[in-house]
Every structure is written in structure tokens, then in C-alpha cells.
């Protein structure tokens, strides 16, 4: 190994009794796929254990909180702080809500037809469908 080689991504694989060094410089074909642990290091795995939180930000007083994205955090307190750093850096908000993503129950894409299509031909549900009779005040 030259000194420069030490700085490229290397993996050491044991084939038989002879250690063999390969690196990523030769493209994917040079990266050994067998004998390389596939799981994350314990440290990375622990970091990935942080739950996902959904973030809602209220842009200003009088408006409602709007979903702006999600993030990872170890608990709710840190989630609010991470949300402050990630989603309100440019004065986007005056209030933040976070909630565990796992607590959201969502409609299923499979149910789209039954859920949403029946509303498509019911224009009388829009107020503009109705004309206001002459002489009605305060409407």
C-alpha cells in the first residue's frame, strides 16, 4: 500500500489464509461483496434508532400549523429543538409542533377510489353552486 492508497476506501477480506486488500477506485467490481459485514456499526445503528418526528410550523399568529417535514430526534424535547434549527432558520415560524410519525394514521392509496372519487360529481357541495336570491341581506 502506498501512502495515498491508505486514504481511499479500503476493505480487507480474508480469502483462505491470505489477506487481500481491495479498494473502490476500480469501480464497483473491485469492491468485495462477500465476507463484508452488511449490518451497520453499533454506533450507526444506535443513531438510526432515533424515532422519526413530523414537524408542524405556524407561520404567524392566526394561521394554523402546517406540516413542513420530518426529522429524527431522541425525544420530543430535542425534536422541537431540531425542528427550530431545521425548519425555522429563516423566520418561517412563531410556533412549532412535533409528533411521533408512528402515531399518524393515514388513509391508504388503495382506498383512493372509495374515499375521494365520490366527491368528484357533487358540485352542489360548493357554496358557489347556489345563487343568492335578490333581496337577501347580510349574506
Amino acid at each position: 500500500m502506498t501512502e495515498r492508497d491508505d486514504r481511499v476506501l479500503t476493505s480487507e477480506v480474508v480469502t483462505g489464509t491470505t489477506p487481500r486488500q481491495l479498494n473502490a477506485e476500480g469501480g464497483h467490481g473491485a469492491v468485495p461483496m462477500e465476507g463484508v459485514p452488511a449490518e451497520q456499526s453499533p454506533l450507526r445503528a444506535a443513531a438510526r434508532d432515533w424515532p422519526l418526528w413530523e414537524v408542524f410550523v405556524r407561520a404567524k399568529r392566526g394561521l394554523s400549523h402546517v406540516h413542513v417535514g420530518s426529522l429524527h430526534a431522541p425525544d420530543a424535547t430535542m425534536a422541537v429543538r431540531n425542528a427550530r434549527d431545521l425548519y425555522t432558520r429563516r423566520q418561517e415560524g412563531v410556533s412549532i409542533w412535533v409528533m411521533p410519525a408512528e402515531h399518524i394514521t393515514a388513509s391508504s392509496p388503495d382506498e383512493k377510489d372509495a374515499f375521494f372519487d365520490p366527491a368528484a360529481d357533487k358540485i352542489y357541495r360548493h357554496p358557489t353552486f347556489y345563487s343568492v336570491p335578490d333581496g337577501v341581506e347580510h349574506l
Partner: protein
Amino acid sequence: MSPTAPAHVPESGATPARADVSRYALRLGDDALISAQRMGEWIAAAPQLEEDVALGNIALDLLGQARALLSYAGQLEEQGQDEDDLAYFRDERDFLNAQIFELGNGDFGFTMARLLVTATYQHALYDRLQRSADEPLAAIAGKAVKEVDYHRDHATQWTLRLGDGTDESHRRMQQGFDDLWPYVSELFESDDLATGLASRGVAVDPSSLEEQVLGYVDEVLAEATLARPETVLRHTGGRRGIHSEQFGYLLAEMQHLARSHPGARW
């Protein structure tokens, strides 16, 4: 700094020498600048992407404070150096930050231990400096106090979680404070410059902050099941331009580009 700076003899009621105020602003500015540089080293190296962003935000807050303070320090000086001259073209002995700010980041525990102490110190300092008789200093402090309040909170949250977390996180957090502690007392050292300006209501006497700052840190340590370290070792000298070995490496990295390509612009 010029070695011929006037002696710091307090003259009650008189306007403080511009060079004195400049030197005081330089101390605070260097604290912020060197903190920013260290905090920025965590970007892309923090435990999580979210923490990268948090530490990057903190670094940028500190850099903003440094720019304001160094610019002001430069304006007060006869030579009229700007913020870039002061950040990039001074040598090690001309930097006046306390040594605690320049120490290598160590692990995340050490970085959070340091941030807890330095942000608590800066918060107490700026909180009182808002009422400085020197208007520019008061204005800079008024903006900075809200920023360092958040830095202090961030470090508090992590100290609580890591101190009162797993066996390993507790051990490393305690180790962080143990390694840090010999550098804490320098923050509260007074000298003629500081007491002279403080007597005119311009500066905050660092020694007057110790009880408040350590009181807050003690509360956090207790809740985090950590102990305040006992130490007889006290490093000092930063305010006079004496720095640790690690500081040279920091300056080399921070100043390299500006010195290799003077006047370079984006």
C-alpha cells in the same frame, strides 16, 4: 495589538481610552471567533444530520458575534483594521481569547461540556453588557444574548441526556467535564483593563460572573448525575496572548486560505 498600548489606569468619570475598549472588544470577539471555528469542525462529523445543522447554526451565531466585535475593535484602533485583518492576519500571540475556547473538540461529550460552560458564561456576560455605557457594545450584546441563550439550552439538553444516560455516556460526559475544568477559572479572571472599564460601566468584570455561571452549571451537573470536578490545575494566559499547543493548528487551518490568497473574493 500594539505593545505600546497605554497602561490601564482607571480614571473615574473620564472617557475610557479607545485602545482599552478596543482590546476588550477583541477579547470577546476572539472568544466568539475561536468558538465558531471549533464548532464548525463538527459539520458533517456530528452523530446525526440534525445535530450537524444545530452545531452549524451555533457556529454561525458565534461567527456573527465575532464579526461585530472584531469590526468594532478595528474601528477603535488607529490603524483601522477590519474584521478580516483581525481574524486572518494576526499571529498567535495577538489573539486574546481564553484558552478554553481553543481546546480541540475531543468527543461529543467534551464539546457539549465546553459549550455548557462557555455559553453559560457568555449568556451571563452579554446579559449584563446590554446595559453597557458603551452603546455599540450594548447593542452587540443585546443581539447576542438571545443567541447564546439557545446555545446554553442546547448544551444543557445534551448534558442531561448523556450524563443521565447509559454507563458509557455518563462516563464520557464526566470525562469531558474533568478534562475541561482546569480551563474554566480563566474565564473569571480580572485584570486592570477589565476592572478599569467595569468601573466606568463599559465592561463586565469577569470575576463578578463566576458565582452565577457556576451556579447554573452546578444545577445542570446535579440533575445530570454528574459531579463538578475537583482540580488544582488552572491554565491561564489567553487574555495576554498565551495559548495552548492546539491553538497553532487551529490558526493554520483558519487563516490558511486568506494568507495564501490575500484579498481573494467569492
